């Protein structure tokens, strides 16, 4: 296998590592932030990271199915954002704040 | 990034072209402002600016000087970063989107072919829609950064209006996309050249004098699209974002001077995108009534006898054709602004969600069915 320069030759690994980094950032956001809306945004970040890897695989395998999955993910993301925001709005109406700890009232 | 060209010459020319398109857009704004002021005066039966220079044309320069020399200030309670960023960002979507609209036939110079548009992108429609939807951010940023409740209210209204009408806007052109089977604006214009003709059930129908324009296939789509673009560019009768009776001046209440001018440019830029898209989707783009570019070229060639000059002439003629259509729509924008009253906010939302969206959806469905039926069943 010829030695390739990791900086001057861009391959699938680069995109996938970028995707992994973005995913981890999003996950850290989900775990660490307290604001419900920022939490939702972090989830969007994770979904985007996954989208990148889908498109990467689609490109490097020459198949279009990966992009179909991105479509589906986008739709799910939009739906999730809509419901999440609606929930946030109702939480805000009730408590005048959107802190995640208000959801602790929902525990069984 | 091959779209910028393969050789240095091409890259340089393309860069210049991008700049030229941007400047073209920005320079059109003062003219439009003058046109709007004179036009409104004409409509309201008064004089308008007519003192500075012939017909008041130099008024533009005076205005520019005034804008530039005004004091630059920011509201104390506001968010300075956003306040200054918003007007700059207002320019970007308009300029980037406008550059994607083809304005004339490609110019052939030797081995090179130059497109008379900022750049070509294969999914032009999606791209333009996406970029112009980013305009909502600038308004929100301006409203938030101003730290004023009028600004914020105006910004919220405007952005809600923009994302609401984006649906109707997008759906209203699905019919035309289905019809031409492409997202590429140039291909779309190609499909609209020549005389009116289409094939159905295996037969070809042709008219002798009608042009092959989209409006004759999608009249409903045209009306919906044009109305939605009014809302997208925040113009009367949909200028709830400004609503001076209620909100002072909406999201740009706190702006003055050059920053204000940038918002102006953004708004007019949206108008220009809308007019350009109207011309491209429904009125054949740069193509000339009843003639294909090849016919025009042949005519030019017969006239001057030189390929090079004929080429240039062809380009110029088509550029003129495009600009005439473009100007007509811009004038309609202005005329409507000074003719129609403003909607109430709930009327606006009703119109968007309960009237235009269903009609656009119906238009899409009917178009799809008709295309399927006429192309699937062939009567031999």
């Amino acid at each position, binding site marked *: 296998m010829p030695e390739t320069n990791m900086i001057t030759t861009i391959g699938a690994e680069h995109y996938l590592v970028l995707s992994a980094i973005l995913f*981890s950032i999003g996950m*850290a956001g989900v775990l660490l932030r307290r*604001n419900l*809306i920022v939490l939702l945004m972090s989830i969007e970040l994770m979904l985007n990271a996954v989208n990148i890897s889908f*498109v990467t695989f689609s490109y*490097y395998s020459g198949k279009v199915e990966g*992009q179909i999955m991105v479509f589906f993910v*986008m739709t799910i993301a939009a739906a999730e954002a809509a419901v999440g925001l609606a929930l946030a709005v109702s939480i805000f109406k009730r408590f005048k704040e959107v802190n995640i700890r208000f959801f602790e009232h929902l525990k069984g | 990034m091959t779209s910028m060209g393969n050789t240095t010459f091409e890259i340089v020319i393309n860069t210049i072209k991008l700049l030229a398109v941007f400047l073209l857009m920005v320079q059109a704004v003062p003219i439009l402002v003058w046109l709007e002021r004179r036009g409104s005066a004409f409509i309201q039966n008064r004089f308008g600016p007519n003192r500075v220079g012939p017909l008041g044309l130099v008024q533009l320069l005076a205005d520019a000087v005034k804008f530039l020399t005004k004091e630059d200030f920011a509201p104390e309670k506001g968010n300075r970063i956003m306040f200054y960023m918003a007007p700059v960002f207002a320019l970007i979507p308009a300029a980037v989107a406008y550059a994607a609209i083809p304005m004339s036939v490609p110019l052939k110079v030797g081995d090179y072919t130059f497109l008379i548009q900022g750049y070509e*992108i294969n999914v032009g429609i999606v791209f333009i829609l996406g970029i112009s939807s980013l305009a909502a951010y600038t308004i929100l940023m301006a409203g938030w950064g101003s730290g004023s409740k009028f600004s914020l209210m105006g910004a919220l209204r405007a952005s809600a209006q923009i994302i609401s009408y984006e649906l109707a806007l997008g759906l209203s052109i699905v019919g035309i996309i289905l019809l031409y089977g492409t*997202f590429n604006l140039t291909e779309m214009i190609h499909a609209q050249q020549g005389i009116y003709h289409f094939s159905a059930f295996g037969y070809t129908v042709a008219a002798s004098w009608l042009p092959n324009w989209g409006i004759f296939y999608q009249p409903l789509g045209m009306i919906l699209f044009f109305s939605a673009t009014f809302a997208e560019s925040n113009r009367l009768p949909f200028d709830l974002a400004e609503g001076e009776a209620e909100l002072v001046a909406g999201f740009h209440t706190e702006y003055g001077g050059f920053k204000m001018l940038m918002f102006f440019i953004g708004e007019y830029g949206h108008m220009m995108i809308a007019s350009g898209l109207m011309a491209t989707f429904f009125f054949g783009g740069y193509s000339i009534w009843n003639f294909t570019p090849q016919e025009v070229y042949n005519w030019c060639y017969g006239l001057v006898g030189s390929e090079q000059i004929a080429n240039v002439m062809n380009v110029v003629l088509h550029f003129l054709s495009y600009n005439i259509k473009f100007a007509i729509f811009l004038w309609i924008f202005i005329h409507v602004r000074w003719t129609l009253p403003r909607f109430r906010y709930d009327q606006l939302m009703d119109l968007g969600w309960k009237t235009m969206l269903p009609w656009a959806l119906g238009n899409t469905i009917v178009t799809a069915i008709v295309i399927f039926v006429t192309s699937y069943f062939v009567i031999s």
Partner: protein
Amino acid sequence: MTADVFLFWFLALITVISGLAVVLMANPIYSALCLAMTMISVAAIFVTLQAYFLAGVQIIVYAGAVMVLFVMVLMLFDLKHELQAFTRGRATGALKIASVGILSGLIVGAVTIGLTIAGRSSDEVISAAAAGGVVDTTRGLSEALFLKNIFGFEALGVLLLVIAVGTVALSRSKGGTHARD
């Protein structure tokens, strides 16, 4: 260093920085705007991967609609700088960060191992892409979507309908602009 390589590093940098900013900014409005930035740069990354249509859709759906909604809601709430933006507890915080770190490391490891096991170094993959190539992406995409994956498409339609109804039900307040009584 060619333009493509430069573009990738540039976009990757913007993506990572704005992504980090989403998580680290204390003011949620900045977070949201940074996320919009991330979305746009992800769209640009799609363009470098020749997924033009997806890039457009990414901008329309994410940047143009979803994020505008986020920003609107945030502005509506008028949330200022948060005093306590992050969760409490050092031990759990450390555990969380550690798990995230390990996870990202594992993903990277999995990717590299996976690519090696598959015996496809990036060169081969690129040549495969160049040979096969996704040429007319929009047409291929629509064919794959409407012919092969039509069930998923329809199911998503149903999902969106349910979501629309649910969202309206959640955020419905008494009265409104059309209140009759």
